[in-house]
């Protein structure tokens, strides 16, 4: 057993975990953050995408003990006080969600992209979400949603996302 400390969506957490536990299982089963999904468990589908120190990773391919000292962001950190993030609202406005299983991972990949590149090109969006499989939408609406979020964030520099420093 290993005792680890890390932050999840800005909250400091401490957990005692077996070496064999994945970060995904820690989030879902210990911290009850079930927004992050398990699709394949082997890095293929992207449903389990979270941000590790600002970078998208697949949490099914990382051990919980490896998260010691790191900063994790999940889909639960997007809405604050019930108010949706600009990205979430854009997904709704563009109809970028159908069954919704891929959506948490998609949004975290998009969040990582907007952290790196605030005004991504069509190609850059495709590359950023190439690791997130969606069985329903055909991807076009998702790409539009990310473009819409990027545009709204750049126009509305006073938005909550910008204030949170998310639009960096």
């Amino acid at each position: 057993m290993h005792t680890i400390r890390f932050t999840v969506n800005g909250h400091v957490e401490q957990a005692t975990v077996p070496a064999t536990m994945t970060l995904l299982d820690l989030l879902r089963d210990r911290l009850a953050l079930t927004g992050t999904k398990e699709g394949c468990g082997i890095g293929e589908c992207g449903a389990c995408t979270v941000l590790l120190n600002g970078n998208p990773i697949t949490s099914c391919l990382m051990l919980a003990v490896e998260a010691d000292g790191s900063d994790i962001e999940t889909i639960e950190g997007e809405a604050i006080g019930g108010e949706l993030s600009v990205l979430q609202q854009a997904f709704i406005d563009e109809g970028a969600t159908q069954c919704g299983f891929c959506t948490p991972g998609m949004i975290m990949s998009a969040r990582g992209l907007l952290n790196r590149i605030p005004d991504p090109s069509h190609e850059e969006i495709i590359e950023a979400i190439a690791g997130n499989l969606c069985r329903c939408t055909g991807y076009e609406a998702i790409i539009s949603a990310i473009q819409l979020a990027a545009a709204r964030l750049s126009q509305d520099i006073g938005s909550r996302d910008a204030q949170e420093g998310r639009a960096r």
Partner: protein
Amino acid sequence: MRSLFCFSGFKFVRFQRGFIVLGDFEYKRIRSIDEGCHCLAEAAGKAAVLAGGTDLLVEIRNHLKSPKVLIDCKNVDALKQVHVDRSGSAIGASVPLNRLIENRAFHTTYPALATALLSIGTYQLRSRATLAGNICNASPAADSAPVLLVLDASVEVVGIRGPRSIPIRDFFVGVKKTVLTPDEIVVSIQIPQRADLHTTFLKQQRIRGHDLAVVNMAGAYSPGERILRLAIGSCAPTPVLLEPIKVDVGNVASFAGHVAEIVLSSVSPISDVRASSGYRNAILPVLVKRILHNLLAEGGAS
């Protein structure tokens, strides 16, 4: 509130499942290379170095490997360094691929290698996966291998008997097998800088999007020496580096035919989930033609 959930029946089942799925191992985060070598030596072949885990954890989950200890070397400073300069480069063993791909100097110095690394998996995967892990995993399809072979890279290793430098052409010995002894840790990959070389990397996949290579191939051409070096992946138990080929092109098409013959006689493709041996044999001459087109057009040979 949250901790209450840990003890519910459902969570207990998931917890147990966690054990079953990911085997049974201990985890050690080492602080120095020496400590790592000693841990590895003590475990006598029952330990594995954990870098990004994108191969290792999948293999453990699929019961293909069952190490007793995972030695995490990501916190050792010496392994986190990247040096790219004119005399050559050293890529630390725990540097994630995205850090290389997003490093401008790396990109301009080794464009073919950057292309190969960008073709590995997905953005999320490349946030964790390493170059060292890609070669130590020793898959015949490892995308970095053909480029490292034509660039004449070497693998810097430390074991309990001290350091050694292994030319990449001697590194792979079979499917998933390298020359590393169980106590050895790869510290860095050294890549000579040859400004005169034109290099290129091609990857034939089943789909556009992320997929392992059906065949991958790298070429490096020196216009001054008129020497071509080619390496091919996914067509033999290890990636294959051909002997340097003297470029003497009267007619590019017949030269390509000549090179394709050398390639076909140097590989032994099998049929697997990604392609038949027939398809691989058929696509190899096509890739040779494309590589020669890229390199010789760029390299100014006529």
